[in-house]
């Protein structure tokens, strides 16, 4: 079974019990050779946490967006933002934590499914608006999208059936333009 790091709590405790807040940081970088390594390497070299990191192209071909979920006290987060900004390929760094933002994650779960459990699993999928994307005599593969909490919740619900394999994308986020509820 795949073990995933449970990063569900909005906050985490560091070893010395210090209060560490979770931040979602959106970084626009030049889509250049090595740019991703620079960001990941900076986190490793400075010993900063990464809860999740996702990267992909944006509306502009030459620019990639990285969404980094990290934890730290105010001083660490300030340094992280500054260090990200300092990288030559970085165009813009926004700590979305201080903004109203939308955040989504996608998960694929291959869950054990017997004749008897299959319908129950499909019910759960329906509640979470997840899709069945593969089926075999012994398993079902579901695709679910949502906030991190939602993704965590569906995983929790599916666990008792036996999760064979699981892949999460890590979070992607954008600043919300519409300030009301959708």
């Amino acid at each position, binding site marked *: 079974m795949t073990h995933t790091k449970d990063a569900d709590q909005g906050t985490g405790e560091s070893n010395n019990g210090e209060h560490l807040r979770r931040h979602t940081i959106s970084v626009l*970088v*030049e889509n250049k*050779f*090595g740019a991703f*390594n*620079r960001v990941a*390497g*900076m986190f490793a*070299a400075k010993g900063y946490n990464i809860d999740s990191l996702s990267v992909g192209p944006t509306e502009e071909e030459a620019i990639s967006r990285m969404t980094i979920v990290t934890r730290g006290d105010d*001083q660490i987060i*300030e*340094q992280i933002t*500054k*260090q990200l*900004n*300092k990288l*030559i*390929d*970085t*165009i813009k760094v926004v700590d979305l934590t201080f903004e109203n933002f939308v955040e989504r994650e996608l998960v694929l779960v291959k869950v054990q499914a017997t004749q008897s459990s299959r319908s129950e699993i499909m019910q759960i999928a329906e509640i979470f608006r997840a899709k069945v994307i593969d089926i075999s005599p012994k398993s079902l593969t579901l695709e679910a999208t949502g906030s991190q909490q939602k993704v965590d919740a569906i995983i929790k619900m599916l666990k008792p059936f036996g999760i064979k394999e699981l892949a999460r994308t890590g979070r992607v986020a954008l600043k919300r333009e519409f300030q009301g509820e959708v």
Partner: protein
Amino acid sequence: MSAHKVTATQKQGNRMMTGAEIFVRCLIAEGVEVVFGYPGGATIGIYDALVDLSDIKHVLVRHEQGATHAAEGYAKATGKPGVVLVTSGPGATNTVTGIADAFMDSIPIVVFTGQVPLKLIGNDAFQEADIVGITRPITKHNYLVRDVRELARTIKEAFYIATTGRPGPVLVDLPKDVMAQKGLFEYPEKVELRSYKPVTEGHPRQIKKAADLINAAKRPVLYVGGGVIQSNASDELRKLAGILQCPVTTTLHGLGAYPENDPLALGMLGMHGTWYSNVAVQYCDVLIAVGARFDDRVTGKVEAFAAEAKKIHIDIDPSAISKNVKVDVPIVGDVKSVLKKLIESVQPLDTKDWLATIEQWKREHPLRYRSGEAIRAQYVIQKLGEITGGNAIVVTDVGQHQMWTAQFFHWVHPRSHITSGGLGTMGFSLPAAMGASFGRQDLPVISISGDGGFQMNSQEMATIVEHKLPVKIFVINNGFLGMVRQWQELFWRRRYSHVGLHNPDFVKLAEAYGCTAYRVRQSSEVEEVIRKALAHKDGPVFVEFVVVQEDNVYPMIPAGQTVNEIIDVPEPVTKASDGAPEDALMTVAKGQHISTTKEIQQ
């Protein structure tokens, strides 16, 4: 650049040429005077292009580490970027220490490495090393050039990034096949990078806040670092200190930014700084940090550093601010431009009482050492300071001699002090002095090393002799890795572990390289040999000073501790009754007239 170069560029305008030729023409267009390099298989094409394009001086070092340190020394002495050219694999990896050193000390150098052909990258090809990956965390930026059409722009960017904002090393990896591709040479006039725009003008609101704090200060201290020298802002600093009548302490890298013959000078602060500079920082009410980065060798225990003071921090690198010590008023910008604005917004302060207190501290706790027949390193340095009047470029290595030089030399000019501070790289001095000597002929260049560090890059003696560089090469031979020995003595119950050095005959070694060499053992010979060395005209001169073996650098604030734990020079131990004359107590206080030391001597 000069007119003839522009025309040379234009003439070549629309001719196809190899990447190698484009590369050399880019360096010429950039105004590069000297390249420190070492050839190999991956750069053989570039070296071929150097045969015809001889506008550029290439210096064949004897080890690639020497090339990077030479480039650093050149950059620190001149303010212009240092340039290195080495081959792939081992040539590239040999530059790593120098690159890391330049990164820590914010020195603008551009390192060009050969690389295996693009199609072989990743194949464990002969002499392949992923130097871009290896140096990613120790460069300001680095590049792999994948197409000859990107070459000129990449080189332009590399120089731009290395020299602007917070300076630093940039590496450009040049695959062999790219350098053989043909292209047009067109060197871009300027660089536009949407992702890199260093801030140089301080924010007016922050400057106002700083001025308000300063105008209310009773016990201000200026804490001045390497950024002042990099920004060429010594004049502005003097002006500000003068208006405020504010004492000035400098970091190791700030030495020379403020003249030590000025009464406001406190000398160096930190682990081996003067007693009074550290105490002044402890008691100040406003600390004005200018181009200094609150290094742990300066702050000791962070929470206790200038704990009572409001802190202003001027730095061009936002990430340097509030990294170690939380400051009250950050100002991001270039020191020179910010100081100019600040000068307009501050008023003269009445600091008479504060300065009087400091004067008393200076009298009570000057820098001290005991000197007798056997040579003390401190004495050598003090004499060197007196004889040159500070009119020299002094390049030190790492260890006790480095700290003694920082303490006892007479620092009056910016760019007169070059050392490895952040990385603390033994072996730095000799090649860095060589680089400085290529860049500066107006002042004598003096390399000071320990007997340990000298042997880490002594091969550059050959290069120095070959080019008849007038470098004065001083080795302070105490027979020990002195700084480590000192720590073992003070903090590890004098259990000496592998710190004794079995040395070669340094004078014979220097002579074998073809260098004039002297050795002195007596204090009485020191002055004469220094004068002789300074007067030496024909190429380099080497002097070995055989000094007291076990002596310590004081004052010392043990790592991570506070000024309360400062260890000053111990009181003299009573000598055995062998009738040997007591060593004389020598004292120096920075910011007082150097002549006081002479009076004490008699």
